[in-house]
């Protein structure tokens, strides 16, 4: 079988976790299907990246050029399309990350190859490819069969596959960049860090997370009182920040903060995977939600299925009593 390609993702000089997840998944897929795994690095300077991944692929193709210092979906798309056209890999794996989401669809459309996004699994059956992914806010999984082709492109969900050490010794191939300048219609300017607020939710042992279930901004008072009682800080899922009820630096999840407190209490949070990615490493997770099917109960250690407005005031008093 032709090669399996994995696109290496890095940002501000650091290899992203998704890279190691893709490499581990790609290696397993390559082993199962008797294929070679090739990692593709676009960078201004690739040495450090090569050192960290050289045991994880059969081959590393390096395209070094100052234009690849920072990610630009258009530069990557033009260059990667050339390489895929020439090498014709059976499948190219990209992370379903902010970078991957900007690149994947336009790359596949340029190449006129079947593609799909945000996959949890990939199965190769002869020349056929099927994938598992989620629909309807993560409530259902779907198995999709892609249109049969010689080459496919698939993006994989971050945080789904464990990274694994490798024992390979990759052959390194350096190739000229197919392009020498960023396209003039899309220029990378800079990265802008999120402004830090007064509360750092990553530093607290106890974090209370709130979501859509709190319904109205005024109900934040009930949560603040509860947080004070238990000695925790208040974070939230995306909808609360979108509604501007709490500032961006309180958001827990892939596009917000990643927290590892001793205790995390999710209140009125359904548990979208983006949120789960930011809190799944908490030591103890408690979820309070009136929907018994909320995905958050698949992450929590303990759950209460009830109306949060009935439970929280009582729980607050019990906590205060226990502390007294």
């Amino acid at each position: 079988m032709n090669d399996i390609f994995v696109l290496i993702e890095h940002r501000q000089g650091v290899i992203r976790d998704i890279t190691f997840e893709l490499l581990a998944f790609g290696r397993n897929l390559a082993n199962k299907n008797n294929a070679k795994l090739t990692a593709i690095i676009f960078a201004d300077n690739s040495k450090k990246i090569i050192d960290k991944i050289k045991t994880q692929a059969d081959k590393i193709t390096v395209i070094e050029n100052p234009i690849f210092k920072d990610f630009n979906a258009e530069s990557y798309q033009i260059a990667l399309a050339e390489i895929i056209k020439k090498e014709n890999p059976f499948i190219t794996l990209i992370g379903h990350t902010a970078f991957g989401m900007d690149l994947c669809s336009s790359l596949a459309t340029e190449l006129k190859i079947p593609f799909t996004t945000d996959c949890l699994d990939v199965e190769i059956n002869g020349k056929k490819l099927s994938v598992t992914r989620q629909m309807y806010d993560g409530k259902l999984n779907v198995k999709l069969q892609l249109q049969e082709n010689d080459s496919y492109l698939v993006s994989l969900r971050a945080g789904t596959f464990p990274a694994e050490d490798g024992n390979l010794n990759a052959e390194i191939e350096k190739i000229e960049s197919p392009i020498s300048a960023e396209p003039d219609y899309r220029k990378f300017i800079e990265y802008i860090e999120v402004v830090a607020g007064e509360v750092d939710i990553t530093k607290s042992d106890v974090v209370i997370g709130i979501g859509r279930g709190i319904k109205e901004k005024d109900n934040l008072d009930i949560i603040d009182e509860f947080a004070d009682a238990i000695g925790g800080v208040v974070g939230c899922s995306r909808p609360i920040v979108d509604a501007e009820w709490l500032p961006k630096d309180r958001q827990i999840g892939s596009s917000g903060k990643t927290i590892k407190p001793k205790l995390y209490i999710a209140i009125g949070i359904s548990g979208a995977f983006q949120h789960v990615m930011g809190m799944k490493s908490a030591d103890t997770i408690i979820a309070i939600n009136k929907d018994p099917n909320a995905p958050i109960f698949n992450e929590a250690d303990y759950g209460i299925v009830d109306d949060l407005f009935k439970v929280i005031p009582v729980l607050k008093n019990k906590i205060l009593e226990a502390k007294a």
Partner: protein
Amino acid sequence: MNIIVCIKRVPQTAEAEVKVDSSGKDIEKDRLIFDTNESDTYALEEAVLQKEKFGGSITVITVGDEDSEETLRIALAKGADEAIRIKVEDLDELDGFKTAQILHKIIKDMDFDIIFTGCLATDDAYSQVGTTLAKLLEIPHASLVTKIELSENSADAYRELEGGLLEHLKIKLPALFTIQTGINVPRYASLIAIRRAARKELNEISKTEFGEMKSNSFIEELFTPPVSKLAEILSGNPDEVSEKLTGIIKEKGLI
């Protein structure tokens, strides 16, 4: 500034029970509430805000069945000037790639400076339509945009990356932007505006005029995700569960 906004009517499933129907390839829809896809409402609001600043007109387009007319009328009530429905009665055969091809067929002959789409449809969750459409139209794009500043021929777009980091890009117009939730606070349509929009004419185009188009993929089956772990659910009234939970928290030395 002439702006096109692509919107979609989707079932609201975040807080609903979602069941697979007897075909095994679709969901039971009769008890679900449908509304405009969440990030599309932010895309529309962004268009209205930009129109208020720069003038011009807004055209909303949807690929959908007859029920989608309601979605278009709400958009008209919120500030869109024109609405187009590309008639598709069997929505199940659409994947993101096919939807983008259909949109391309109509948009390629339109005059526009900017296209806004939502960054993700909550039903099929592909995040494909906007970025695929941009490529088909051969215009630049930026996805997951949480802030945008327009000038005559270009836009400063800010993309949201993991960890809350923003990627600042300069993009030449015409261009397509997929809008992330939280970029603005979408307005509600007033009752008067809704009544006025109800009388407006919608443009309808049949998909069959565009000829056959290929999907990228076919649904084999839908199923409930396997559960790897399930919380120990505490039972009882609020008093009882609070008592139990306080005991657990205390035992773990967390208070």
